């Protein structure tokens, strides 16, 4: 007879670790399965860690978690081919503990988080891929792994298997993900001396900077770029919707290469040594693309459930929070000795609905459609803004009033007055 657990958690990323930790702390018999050599070895993120979500799980995480730099400055760049126009926000408030955001290196961070999970009492088995869910009719009763023995049983299975959500797809819990609902991001990590990082970004100690980018770097596709500081390295990447990459037939690594060659970016990377190239899908379909996240004997958490706020580049915090909610739901039901039926597990969705996870996704529910249908936000506007700045900042004997008129004429020429007003309205409605 195969061993039976109270709960099986598939995956040891942020959502799976949050779930397994919470369950184990409550004294449940938890098995966590991870296909990588160690937790983190399969995981990729444009890795900004938001302290709040983790703090709620491990309040003293700052004592020993491997953190790179806390962010004191956020830059937003809108790029044309030769230029960028942007805003920087830097505050010394962000430089006072407890810090709000950190850059992390996932291979190290996930390993640390997993150690906490194991200390809490969960059993972790690595190098084990879950190939299928074991079903009894409509009810999930365990998992099939690629290991000896293979079958493992549990009262509840929490699917934290990442963006591809392969297990739920195979089980027919939701259809295949559509290309319009995921972005493909590629990134590289470039190492350079700590002093170089600090000099190039005007920071000291463990302080760091994040640059978010939009505009011509995505060649008209819906997407963004990013560049951030780690302790002794920089991470640079770009992500675009898969439907756009497919339509425009653009190679993601050529896109990254062109971005790196931008005259405002190349000097920042100069002399760095590239040590890893990664790719990852980001579930950016938003509220309308969220699948059914619970059923008889199962729940989906994190990326697998589409819990990413693309507008604010948040994901790991939604992952951890959803992992906690799933675990809390299990604990509450177990306390009342109630079975893990779909009806009872609906409590998980209620918790999500009442929290920032669903509230934020709901707020921006129309955003993906607006951006999909209006590529001018990624092409025409970045150009217009950069040209306007260029004109105003070039001193050439033309008076400023005339320059303003020329800029306005250019705007109207490029987009028409109705186009401009329509775009403003679309954005306002989507943000509302």
């Amino acid at each position, binding site marked *: 007879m195969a061993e039976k657990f109270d709960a099986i958690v598939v995956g040891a990323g942020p959502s799976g670790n949050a779930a397994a930790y919470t369950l184990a702390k409550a004294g449940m018999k938890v098995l966590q399965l991870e296909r990588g*050599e160690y937790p983190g070895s399969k995981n990729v993120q444009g890795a900004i860690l938001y302290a709040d979500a983790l703090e709620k799980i491990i309040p003293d995480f700052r004592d020993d978690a491997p953190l790179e730099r806390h962010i004191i400055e956020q830059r937003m760049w809108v790029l044309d081919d030769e230029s960028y126009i942007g805003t920087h926000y830097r505050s010394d408030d962000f430089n006072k503990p407890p810090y709000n955001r950190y850059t992390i290196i996932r291979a190290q961070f996930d390993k640390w988080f997993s150690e906490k999970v194991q200390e809490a009492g969960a059993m972790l088995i690595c190098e084990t891929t879950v190939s299928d869910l074991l079903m009894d009719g409509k009810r999930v009763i365990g998992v099939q792994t690629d290991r000896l023995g293979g079958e493992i049983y549990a009262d509840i299975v929490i699917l934290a298997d990442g963006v591809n959500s392969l297990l739920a797809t195979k089980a027919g819990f939701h259809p295949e993900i559509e290309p319009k609902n995921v972005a493909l991001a590629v990134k590289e990590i470039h190492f350079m001396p700590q002093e170089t990082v600090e000099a190039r970004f005007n920071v000291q100690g463990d302080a760091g900077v994040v640059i978010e980018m939009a505009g011509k770097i995505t060649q008209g596709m819906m997407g963004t770029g990013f560049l951030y500081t780690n302790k002794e390295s920089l991470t640079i990447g770009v992500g675009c919707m898969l439907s756009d990459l497919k339509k425009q037939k653009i190679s993601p690594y050529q896109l990254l290469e062109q971005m790196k060659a931008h005259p405002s970016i190349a000097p920042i990377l100069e002399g760095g040594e*590239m040590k890893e190239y990664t790719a990852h899908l980001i579930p950016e379909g938003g509220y309308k693309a969220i699948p059914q996240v619970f059923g008889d004997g199962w729940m989906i958490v994190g990326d697998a459930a589409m819990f990413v706020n693309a507008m604010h580049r948040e994901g790991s915090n939604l992952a951890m929070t959803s992992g906690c909610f799933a675990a809390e739901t299990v604990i509450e039901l177990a306390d009342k000795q109630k079975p893990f039926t779909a009806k009872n597990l609906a409590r998980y969705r209620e918790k999500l609905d009442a929290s920032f996870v669903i509230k934020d996704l709901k707020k921006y529910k129309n955003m993906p459609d607006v951006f999909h249908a209006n590529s001018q936000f990624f092409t025409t506007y970045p150009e217009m803004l950069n040209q306007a700045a260029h004109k105003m900042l070039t001193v050439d004997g033309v008076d400023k009033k005339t320059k303003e008129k020329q800029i306005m004429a250019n705007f109207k020429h490029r987009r028409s007055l109705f186009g401009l007003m329509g775009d403003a309205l679309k954005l306002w409605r989507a943000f509302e």
Partner: protein
Amino acid sequence: MSTHVKVEEKLFQNRYRVDGGRPHIQIKDAEVCVSQCGTQPCTVCCPAGCYTQENNGRVVLITDGCLECGTCRIICDDFRNVTWEYPRGGYGVLFKFG
């Protein structure tokens, strides 16, 4: 801009444990790629360049450099012509930083 790069130069920096002779992704029906799929987006969009277009129109898949992102699986939505599994436990790409 002349920024063309060979993806192999990037992948060279990565760590892999290749499961020799057991590719985790397979093209279901090679004929579908040739005769039905005109655009073959997998040959352009795979971030590891695992799919190459041959002169005779066939698509050749070599999964050794795969980053396990899932792009090819989702992008082939018109034909669903790839069988896609994660590699066996412990095999495939092993991110040093992630």
